[in-house]
């Protein structure tokens, strides 16, 4: 299935709106919805593992080998702040999106 866009002619669309490349929503980035931006303070992080399970967007990557959380995946983070709130160590703070870039 080649990339389908709103320019694709009807003959090339899958029938019934079926999708044969499951999981392809990865190509649909939601990061630009963000109005708040989480900032990860690695020095304060104790790798307790509380933040990544609560992320609604699965936007906190965890290393396959070292099992340590990495910086946010801003392609998907919507800036809800749930992670910041559950962090017991103040390792995630929220700031307005686009101010300190």
């Amino acid at each position, binding site marked *: 299935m080649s990339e389908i866009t709103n320019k694709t002619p009807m003959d090339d669309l899958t029938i019934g709106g079926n999708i044969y490349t499951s999981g392809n929503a990865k190509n649909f980035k939601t990061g630009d919805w963000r109005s708040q931006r989480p900032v990860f303070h690695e020095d304060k992080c104790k790798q307790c593992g509380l933040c990544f399970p*609560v992320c*609604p967007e699965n936007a906190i990557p965890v290393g396959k080998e070292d099992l340590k959380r990495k910086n946010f995946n801003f392609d998907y983070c919507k800036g809800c702040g749930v992670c910041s709130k559950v962090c017991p160590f103040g390792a995630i703070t929220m700031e307005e999106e686009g101010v300190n870039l």
Partner: protein
Amino acid sequence: MCAGCGAPPVARHIMRALKEEDHAVVANATGCMEVSTFIYPYSAWTDSFIHTAFECAGATLSGVEAAYVSLKRQGKLPEDKHTKFIAFGGDGGTYDIGLQSLSGAMERGHDMTYVCYDNGAYMNTGIQRSSATPKFADTTTSPAGKVIPGKMQSRKDLAKVMVGHHLPYVAQTAAFMNFKDLYEKAEKAIYTEGPTFLNVLSPCPRGWGYATEDLMLINKLAVETCYWPLYEVENGVYHITYKPAKKLPVEEFLKPQKRFKHLFKPGNEWMIEEFQKEVDSRWQELLDLEEMTNK
């Protein structure tokens, strides 16, 4: 889904309970989850997925499961591969418009797990009351007005309705204590043979009116006040999986939510009292059921 929505972590942890070697077919009732995870030409689901309509996730998945049983029996599917069947529906698609379809699927004994992510109103259409909406909540079709102070009816106890179907496994859970309760119940439900049902609390920042970052706090308060007890019923035997050491007053759960704001106006103390009374009696009923069924 909206920033801070309670449903995606719920769905993710349930799907995580599926063994890596197993394949799943997920059915979804129309609702927030469906319309935000499968917008043509993008699907967020890595397992097979089907959505047909609002009220028939149970029946749709019945058909998929029946096909599996039939094809397997005829040797038309690989013998060593296992497929699991999981349905997701909101409280609208489960408690209300989809109740008949769910009841039929459970009664017929299809090998499936039905998960209700209960956010206590029809959120996808803009926060209308459902039979899962708690008493007095302000919704767009049970507005807190000058004469009628929000929804005047109590919420339906769907987990108990499912227990009445004599299923091998029914549980109520929430994203609590780092998802342990949720994950364990999901694993049990998926790997118990026959029809199983999970009712999962799924806070909605828009509909409930709390700050998005407070998702896990709201979950915690729902459990610690016993508004949303965590329990499971295995073959009719009740087991409360979390009993708060100190049960918090329900006010603490109600206070951070705008849908209950009018309960805190002077003169409306009776509403909080009544709410508390209902929480208490339902909790007591649960304790009694646990005692009775474990004798």
